[in-house]
């Protein structure tokens, strides 16, 4: 029989394709035509294409088996999009579709030779064969990776738009079959806000490929859903249920976004995914032409596709019978109906590599056929219930698993809960919807009652409704998993029943171990098709029942999610100072620092350093954390947070402080100034702005609620500008009239408030991170750009130039100022940074006091020291190790290093152990290229102006 036995049927009453809208697409280099509404699968089969891929391990030719989202054989490359599910994706004009995993071609695949040596490719083959010798693994890997399945990723693919949405519906219904639609409509009709999510392209579930009467019910329910105001999302999958009904939903049908990730907080979740048909295990069960009854019914009734010319139908249920009737109705020769309920069986399918040709039956007879339809039962996709804590229980009589544990806020309905006529399913769905709406109103009431700041909740809490639903029945179904022969169990991973039996014999006889060892159920189908057969084969191998073996736990996601979908739209805010427009207009090279974008330099950092040291430079330090502290007990708070003393800081003074966590590790540092009787301004490191605020609140709210202090974060309220250099006083003087800037009236470590460039309420303090005479101006942010531009204009004749973060970092390193987190790490306790004078153990309490007392007695703490290389031209990279003499013993590391434009030599800070911390100690530094160089520990942290004459000027 030839491929032309496939094709398009005459119009069917339930078809979803539009025969008046032809669509041209490209398959494997050939131009083909389908209709609007066709999936890739239906369009290919209508064009006579039976083979669409090759299996992962043995490279056996494969055709469609389920012809829907779960089809394990239908992964294709669409344009630059790999691993597209062709049973689900609709065709579009001009679409280019290529088969995957078929090197060198679909028809002639040299790796099919794997099939000949299949018995050597058993479970664990790769582990067992290539594990030794280990050093050869990279060579093996290169060869094996060309065999790996999957499509091609094009790194030049343009970014596409993905989106995110957050929503808080009362009820989310997963599944738009008869029960799901009825549940959604019933819940909405009594006032619940309902979101109905349907995996497929249309609402209706299995009614869509049923009778005309079935479709009439589906249409009526869809109208009811719409009239009740339910929000319906089709081609959308609920992928996971997490704590407190936080659910993830992937919408593939958004008009603008390729995919939209919806995060919903459902008060009640209704799980109604229906059932997934299970394949049968027998020899040749993966030959093209072996299909499930649901696939055949979908293809015939929804897409008008002829799936073969002569069929054998193996049926154990009404769906199988209906498939035989459908085939007969459209004129396909049904050569034999094999009824499992009468003990009849299918033993094997044989034929060419391209198609089934004959089917061997249990009675020994052989029937010629190019289509073998199996209807051997269903798998209940209990994934979402598993995620809510349910462990499904097997029922022998109906040959499938059922949910066992009821979680209050998750309800199930439809096929997953039991069997019934369409009317019974609808009735069960309606009851579920009413129950869900009732419970949702209780949850809503509780949320509102728990929210102190909300409008007081009206009335008493509604009563929590007990489950009043009549139970759905369970139809008898023969247990059919494997025939008398062995076949494929996991089609996407190419794992056969023989492999499972062998693995069980090797000792992998627990279902969770078996799964990981053989990879059965771990492929793209994720167990939807093969879990129950895997469990059944294992039970047979162990001589036990399915109930005894149990099943694997289904975890999120229900379907794979693309990384683009997970990333969604970027919600991360970007922070810039009010001066950013000026920076951008003046050639800034920006740097990303946490949430901030700030100037790194304006061309040449070394020139910026030289100009600041010679004339005057200005830099934008707005990200510096700033906390406004007010109240009578601020000194107590400061004493608690910092290691040094704060009870007597005079008004108008600024003091440096070091903060430690309770383990004595340096947490932050900065200066705090006293602006008024009960008014202070604290600065923190840029990266510590948020965490130090929380740290201060923690002490105020928990240990010392009696202290009267109000903390206000003002980091972005002020634009901060540091004016540094020998001419800084002259420059600032040109902008300030109401503050005496002379060295006598406003000396080092003092703070003043005044008017700068006409802007009132500016705070200025004299500090010196750069080591130069400097004034730090904190200007109300609305005027930041104005003050900056005035400084640039007024200072033109003084040689004022901006400098960026890099110049600032060079200058601080020249001065030996450490940076928390750069020169200290998560283990660096305060005694390491050489400021023991700032650790006041005679204070009654401060954060970290206990540990610091012990650390100061210890000789085990590392020390931060200034280091200079003997060869001044070598700048060791940051994090280079410091070794003991000629040994490989690590005694420290370089933490900061730069070429100093001021000293014309390299300067470093580093951490060394106590034995190497003494001034004058010769160190060995291991460079990244492996070279060892000599360096010396300096007597002072400052490489430049250790006496501080410049900054005090």
């Amino acid at each position, binding site marked *: 029989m030839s491929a032309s036995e496939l094709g398009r049927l005459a119009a069917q009453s339930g078809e979803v394709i539009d025969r008046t809208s032809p669509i041209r697409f490209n398959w494997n280099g050939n131009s083909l035509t389908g209709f609007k509404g066709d999936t890739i699968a239906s369009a290919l089969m209508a064009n006579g294409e039976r083979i669409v891929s090759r299996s992962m391990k043995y490279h056996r030719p494969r055709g469609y088996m389920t012809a829907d989202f779960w089809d394990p054989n239908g992964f294709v490359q669409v344009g630059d999009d790999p691993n597209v599910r062709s049973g689900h994706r609709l065709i579009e004009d001009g679409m280019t579709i290529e088969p995957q995993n078929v090197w060198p071609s679909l028809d002639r695949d040299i790796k099919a030779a794997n099939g000949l040596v299949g018995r050597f490719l058993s479970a664990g083959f790769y582990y067992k064969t290539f594990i030794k010798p280990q050093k050869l693994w990279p060579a093996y890997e290169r060869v094996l990776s060309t065999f790996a399945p999957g499509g091609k990723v094009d790194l030049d693919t343009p970014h596409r738009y993905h989106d995110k949405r957050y929503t808080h519906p009362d009820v989310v219904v997963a599944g738009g079959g008869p029960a799901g639609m009825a549940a959604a409509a019933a819940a909405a009709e009594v006032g619940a806000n309902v979101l109905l999510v349907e995996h497929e392209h249309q609402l209706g579930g299995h009614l869509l490929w049923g009778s005309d009467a079935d479709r009439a019910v589906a249409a009526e329910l869809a109208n009811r859903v719409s009239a009740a105001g339910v929000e319906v999302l089709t081609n959308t999958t609920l992928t996971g249920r*997490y*704590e*407190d009904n*936080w659910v993830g939903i992937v919408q593939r049908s958004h008009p603008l976004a390729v995919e939209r990730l919806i995060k919903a*907080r459902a008060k009640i979740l209704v799980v109604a995914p229906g059932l997934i048909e299970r394949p049968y295990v027998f020899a040749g069960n993966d030959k093209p032409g072996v299909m499930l009854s649901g696939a055949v019914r979908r293809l015939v009734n929804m897409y008008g596709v002829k799936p073969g010319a002569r069929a054998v139908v193996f049926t154990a249920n009404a769906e199988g019978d209906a498939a035989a009737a459908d085939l007969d109705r459209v004129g396909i020769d049904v050569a034999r109906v094999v009824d499992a309920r009468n003990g009849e069986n299918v033993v094997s399918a044989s034929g060419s590599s391209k198609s089934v040709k004959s089917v061997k039956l249990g009675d020994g007879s052989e029937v010629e056929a190019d289509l073998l339809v199996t209807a051997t039962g269903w798998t209940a996709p209990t994934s979402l219930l598993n995620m809510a804590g349910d462990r499904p229980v097997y029922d022998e009589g109906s040959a499938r698993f059922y949910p066992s544990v009821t979680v209050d806020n998750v309800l199930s309905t439809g096929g997953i809960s039991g069997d019934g006529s369409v009317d019974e399913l609808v009735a069960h769905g309606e009851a579920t919807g009413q129950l869900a709406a009732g419970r949702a109103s209780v949850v809503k009431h509780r*949320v*509102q009652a*728990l*929210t*102190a*700041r*909300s409008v007081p909740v009206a009335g008493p809490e509604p009563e929590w409704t007990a489950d009043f639903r009549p139970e759905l029945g369970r139809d008898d179904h023969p247990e059919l998993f494997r025939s008398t022969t062995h076949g494929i169990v996991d089609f996407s991973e190419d794992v056969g029943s023989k492999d499972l039996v062998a693995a069980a014999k090797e000792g992998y006889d627990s279902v969770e171990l078996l799964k990981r060892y053989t990879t059965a159920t771990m492929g793209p189908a994720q167990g939807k098709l093969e879990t129950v057969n895997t469990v059944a084969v294992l039970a047979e191998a162990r001589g036990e029942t399915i109930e005894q073996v149990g099943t694997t736990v289904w975890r999120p996601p229900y379907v794979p999610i693309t990384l683009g979908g997970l990333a969604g739209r970027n919600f991360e805010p970007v922070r810039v100072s009010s001066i950013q427009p000026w920076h951008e207009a003046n050639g800034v090279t920006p740097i990303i620092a946490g949430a901030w974008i700030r100037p790194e330099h304006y061309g040449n950092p070394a020139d910026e350093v030289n100009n600041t040291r010679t004339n005057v430079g200005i830099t934008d330090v707005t990200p510096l954390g700033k906390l406004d502290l007010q109240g009578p007990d601020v000194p107590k708070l400061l004493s608690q947070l910092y290691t040094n003393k704060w009870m007597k800081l005079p008004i108008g003074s600024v003091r440096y402080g070091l903060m430690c*966590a*309770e*383990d004595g590790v340096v947490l932050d540092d900065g200066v705090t100034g006293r602006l008024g009787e009960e008014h202070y301004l604290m600065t923190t490191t840029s990266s510590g702005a948020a965490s130090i605020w*929380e*740290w201060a*609140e*923690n*002490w105020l*709210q*928990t*240990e010392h*609620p009696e202290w009267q202090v109000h903390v206000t974060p003002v980091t972005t309220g002020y634009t901060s500008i540091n004016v540094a250099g020998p001419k800084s006083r002259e420059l600032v003087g040109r902008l300030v009239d109401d503050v005496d800037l002379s060295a006598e009236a406003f000396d080092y470590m003092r703070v003043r408030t005044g008017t700068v460039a006409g802007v009132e309420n500016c705070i200025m303090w004299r500090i010196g991170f750069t080591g130069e005479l400097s004034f730090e101006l904190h200007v109300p942010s609305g005027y930041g750009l104005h003050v900056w531009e005035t400084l640039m204009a007024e200072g033109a004749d003084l040689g004022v130039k901006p400098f960026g973060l890099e110049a600032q970092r060079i200058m601080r390193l020249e001065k030996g100022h450490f940076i928390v987190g750069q020169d200290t790490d998560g283990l660096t306790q305060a005694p390491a940074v050489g400021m023991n004078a700032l650790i006041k153990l005679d204070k*009654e*309490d*401060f954060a970290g*006091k*206990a*540990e610091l007392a*012990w650390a100061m007695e210890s000789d085990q703490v590392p020390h931060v020291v200034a280091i200079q290389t003997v060869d001044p031209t070598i700048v060791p990279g940051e994090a280079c190790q410091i070794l003991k003499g000629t040994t490989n013993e690590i005694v420290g590391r370089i933490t900061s290093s730069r070429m100093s434009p001021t000293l014309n030599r390299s300067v470093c800070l580093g951490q060394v152990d106590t034995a190497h911390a003494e001034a004058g100690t010769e160190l060995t530094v291991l460079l990244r290229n492996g070279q060892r160089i000599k360096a010396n520990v300096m007597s002072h942290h400052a490489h430049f102006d250790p006496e501080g004459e410049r900054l005090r000027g």
Partner: protein
Amino acid sequence: MLLVPCPNCGPRNSSDLHYVGEAQARPNPSEATPTEWREYLYMEDNPAGWLRENWYCRSGCRQFFTLERHTGSNEFRNPPMPGNKVGGKA
């Protein structure tokens, strides 16, 4: 994602809050022995059952508070009023 009942803001996603840790009293740092202090710093009871723990409503009211949570079921009980004294460990 866990819903945490902030006493001010009502149930909020746990990502809106900062989990501070188990509620423990802070020893006097001038008197504690190293063993006592490090017990406080590093040791948690981590019971399978009811646990008193501290939370900080970082993205909402910015209050610290103590809640009782069942570590098995993630159920909360006795939501307290804000301002209760709780341990200060960060």
